[in-house]
């Protein structure tokens, strides 16, 4: 009985061994305001209920606050929302039921600060530098008048046909920029195509309607259409009210655009930008009113619907090539050429990676994993 009571008391008042070797340092490659704390697990980790991270501000005797908790088996914690430039010390409190033991306080302070360079992005930097050099080279070639060729893109060839057909039918043109914001690259590409469509519409004296999901995109669309009409020498035909804001609700926007489609009955519909679940609703309604439709997006999940329901589709990068394709501007064409060379380099890299990985797997020579490891490292 006495022995049992002694064991019981021992278990109840058992203090776990503390966490050891606590160290804290500024979290690397971040925007500041964060410290990473690491420690060696308590020797009694199997019965530990949690580790409490105690933040000590200013000096080892400074104010102590609980920064957070982690479960047993975890030996690191990222303390966030800290003040840059402030000194922080840390201590780990190891809990087992109601009992706890404290570790030593970190010997040196951790001072959070932002980093200017993300060392894990070296590969991206190398790719960008190579691309910039290629771009510069082809730009110089283009300036000297070297011919830069671009293959036929059916969806872009059909723009004039679609605008012409709409004019013949005496119907307006509907241009839908999707749900993207002005910060989305597909929206910017969609605006480049809009300029060409607006110019053509002005030349043929056709009405163009652009309902918008985002108010900033609406402003950009108004500027783009106005510029297209001015380039065509018909600023008098520009109607700002035809480029309007609908709503920033996905299906509210889809309902509104569908309403415009069935009431205005456009002869040509362009769906160019970033689309989500509303893509098929829009494309099917456009199909039902008999309009010629040219779509384009980079949303991989929506492209199948556009391919099924519209007459022409610009797949992914074909949208980005539109600006160069439509203007034939040497500067834009040189970017395409530089991109193509980069693609060839990537294909070569994939080939090399496959060969090295195959050798590594078949011979067991770990050194041949170097290319994969290089990408892992950075």
């Amino acid at each position, binding site marked *: 009985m006495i022995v049992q009571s002694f064991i019981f008391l021992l278990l109840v008042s058992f203090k776990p061994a503390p966490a050891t070797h606590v160290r804290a340092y500024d979290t690397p490659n971040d925007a500041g305001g964060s410290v990473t704390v690491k420690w060696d697990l308590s020797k009694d980790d199997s019965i530990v209920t949690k580790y409490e991270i105690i933040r000590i501000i200013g000096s080892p005797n400074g104010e102590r606050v609980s920064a957070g908790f982690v479960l047993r088996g975890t030996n690191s914690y990222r303390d966030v929302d800290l003040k840059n430039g402030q000194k922080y010390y840390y201590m780990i409190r190891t809990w087992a039921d109601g009992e706890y033991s404290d570790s030593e306080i970190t010997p040196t302070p951790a001072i959070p600060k932002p980093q200017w360079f993300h060392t894990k992005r070296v590969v991206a930097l190398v790719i960008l530098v190579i691309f910039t050099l290629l771009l510069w080279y082809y730009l110089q070639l283009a300036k000297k008048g070297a011919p830069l*060729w671009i293959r036929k893109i059916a969806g872009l060839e059909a723009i004039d046909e679609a605008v012409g057909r709409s004019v013949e039918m005496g119907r307006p043109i509907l241009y839908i920029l999707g749900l993207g914001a002005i910060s989305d690259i597909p929206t910017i590409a969609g605006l480049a195509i809009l300029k060409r469509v607006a110019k053509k519409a002005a030349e043929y004296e056709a009405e163009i309607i652009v309902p918008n999901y985002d108010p900033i995109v609406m402003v950009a669309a108004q500027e783009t259409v106005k510029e297209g009409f001015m380039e065509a020498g018909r600023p008098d035909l520009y109607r700002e009210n035809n480029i309007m804001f609908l709503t*920033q609700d996905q299906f509210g926007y889809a309902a509104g655009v569908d*309403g415009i489609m069935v*009431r205005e009955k456009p002869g040509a519909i362009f769906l160019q930008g970033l689309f989500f679940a509303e893509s098929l609703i829009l494309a099917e309604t456009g199909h039902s009113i008999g309009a010629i439709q040219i779509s384009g997006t980079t949303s991989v999940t929506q492209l199948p619907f556009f391919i099924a329901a519209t007459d022409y589709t610009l797949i992914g990068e074909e949208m980005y090539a539109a600006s160069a394709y439509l203007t034939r501007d040497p500067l834009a064409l040189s970017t395409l050429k530089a991109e193509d060379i980069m693609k060839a380099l990537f*294909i070569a890299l994939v080939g090399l990676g496959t060969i090295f990985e195959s050798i590594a797997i078949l011979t067991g020579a770990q050194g041949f994993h170097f290319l994969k490891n290089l990408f892992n490292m950075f």
Partner: protein
Amino acid sequence: MAQVFWTWVAAFLTLAIFSFLYKDNPFYKFAEHIYVGSSAAFWLVYLWYFDIKPKLIDAWRMNTGLEKYILIIPAILSVFILLRFIRPIAWISRWAIAFTVGMAAGLGITANLQGFLVPQIQATFLPVWVPSHNFWHSLGLSVNNWILVIGTVVTIFYFYFSKEHKGTLGALSRAGIVFIMIAFGASFGYTVMARISLLIGRVYFLIHNWLHIV
């Protein structure tokens, strides 16, 4: 009582939106205008309480030093956008748009390189033969790798713009579009399944919440 009323309103609006499947009609128009109007108002309030107020007004009150004064830049750009309503100086709004487009393009390049391009290249570094305890198992894994590597390479060839797609390049590009279409076919089927579940959700609302049939 109020719940019953709003269930009837929701059911009526659902049926009014579905009536578009027949053709455009006054019920659809009514539901559409309510939807567009109320959602525009909702987002206006949402943007005020979740963007402008916390990120600009509250942040101005709470921050100090550089973190406080840097907020002047987005505030000025926001005012520039609103200058569109004053015709003689409406052109200033272009500065804000130019800033946003330039910033987005710059951020987009790094994000896409780091988030998509680099991981995808790395994921394509695959051995042509995967050893295993069983020959057929090895063959299955290896064929999977071949499909991934060949599919990636020929798909890139499809997006090669500065050369005419004739001869070898033409053949590779055609193979690329076959891979793309197979991927799209799979994605189409998968997404249709998801859409059907959305429809089921709406029909369930009508027969359960509204009609109490099930």
